[in-house]
């Protein structure tokens, strides 16, 4: 078994640190991966300096999609929105610490897509295919 199911991924999947919803929130966005039905929602609270003070994710899906959401939400807490906008595929893969084939890459990138949907608004969101190819 290679390292796809690294301890960190199974651990975050089984014991997520940032699972939940924020009510009220400043940003909330959710999306599905139609290929496998994975679903992720991310809620953000932002202070007057556009810094993320609190973030939570919810949803359901495979270990890769849910662990990447938990890790990503942890990473962005305390970040400025403008820095969040710069995050890309490489950042998510670094958090997971693994390389992924084309199918599972989309599982990993769903949370990034949702995050970008939340902070950019719908119109500028790349599709999962575009994100995977980025």
């Amino acid at each position, binding site marked *: 078994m290679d390292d*796809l*199911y690294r301890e960190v991924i*199974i651990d975050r999947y089984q014991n997520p640190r940032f699972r939940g919803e924020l009510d009220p929130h400043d940003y909330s966005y959710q999306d599905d991966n139609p290929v496998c039905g994975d*679903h992720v929602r991310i809620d953000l609270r932002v202070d007057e300096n556009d810094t993320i003070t609190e973030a939570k994710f919810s949803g359901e899906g*495979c270990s*890769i999609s849910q662990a990447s959401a938990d890790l990503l939400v942890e990473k962005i807490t305390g970040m400025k929105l403008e820095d969040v906008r710069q995050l890309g595929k490489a950042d998510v893969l670094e958090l997971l610490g693994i390389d992924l084939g084309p199918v599972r890459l989309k599982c990993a990138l769903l949370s990034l897509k949702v995050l970008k949907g939340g902070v950019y608004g719908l119109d500028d969101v790349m599709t999962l295919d575009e994100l995977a190819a980025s």
Partner: protein
Amino acid sequence: MTISPQAGPLDVDKIRADFPILHMEASPGVKLAYLDSGASSQKPLAVIEAMNTYYRSQNANIHRAVYTLGEVATEAYEAARAKVAKFINASKPREIIFTRNATESVNLVAQTWGRANLKEGDLVLLTEMEHHANLVPWQMLAAEKGIRLEFIPVTEEGILDLAALPALLEQKPKLVSFTAMSNVLGTITPAAEIVRLAHEASALAMIDGAQSVPHLPTDVQALDVDFLAFSSHKMLGPTGLGVLYGKLDLLNAMPPFMGGGDMIKRVELRSFTTNEVPQKFEAGTPAIAEVVGLGAAVDYLMAVGMDAVAAYDHELTAYALERLEEVQGLKVFGPGIEHKSSNASFTFEGAHPHDVAEILNRHGVATRAGHHCAMPLHNKFGIPSTTRASFYLYNTKEEIDQLIEALYKVKEIFG
């Protein structure tokens, strides 16, 4: 559509020798166990070679060709139509329409018969276990024309609740369209009975046979079904090809589907008259090589015998259900073996189906994870997705053992 236990035994070693892909390794040193025939079957050499031969020595466009090669191609294409007709016991080859896939076959009926014969408020009766291919075309028609949709319910056990049928038929549906075998639950539905009851209520009946036609003997005349949709690639044939069977009088009365070459008799600048059935529904150059390949697939299945195929699929499914029961935390959906064949869809406590399929893949076992194009059925059972193992005439009990061993590895990782 029943399983005959008297069928002669099937020689799986001999069959496997005909399928080159089954002898590949999944990864170095790991045997491939292909358990995804419900999505697409593998192809025997006879099918691959029939298409090669077509391209090497028979290729030309069909119909209207005066030269010999064109005649050879036309004959090969029409001979395959006759073989498919015989395979499902249609009374005439003209009742076989070639489409792109089973999905297009259903859409053809919805867009031609449906548009011409259904008006606002008319009812189409479906079931809760339909594949999206027999759901969305009717939803589109509902949005366009205001027709109503109702559904024969699925019981907790995973079979159709026929007790609910009389009340639904009292609402006078114009069409009852249903699957003869669920692609998720493996449920074999009482197709002949549903067709009979539909006809008694003056409704037409259509069967989605994408799963049943590859696995069970099919006799459209005995079923008395009005339309039957199925796919080539799930029954040893090539992709890109589907079949619609329809009773000739219905096909004759239906408006054409797509417009273009071949489907016309005469064309003027502002008008056309349609060709006869089946050309009326086959606009443009069809998938000639694929049709020839399907003809070879049908020859192959008939040589093995569909009774033998059905009995063997059923035996494999029974063995799989028995072995899956041993695995703690695993839940198989659908009815017991008496109502089921050809697949087993399951969830695994603590492990998402996508992760299960990924780990199975690492042990050479090809399965499918997801909603299997039946989201409403998954919603019914309160689960987003399942892992599905599906079986066909070339699978073995050893491959099912390989699946079970790999499932214990899932347990080690997620347990």
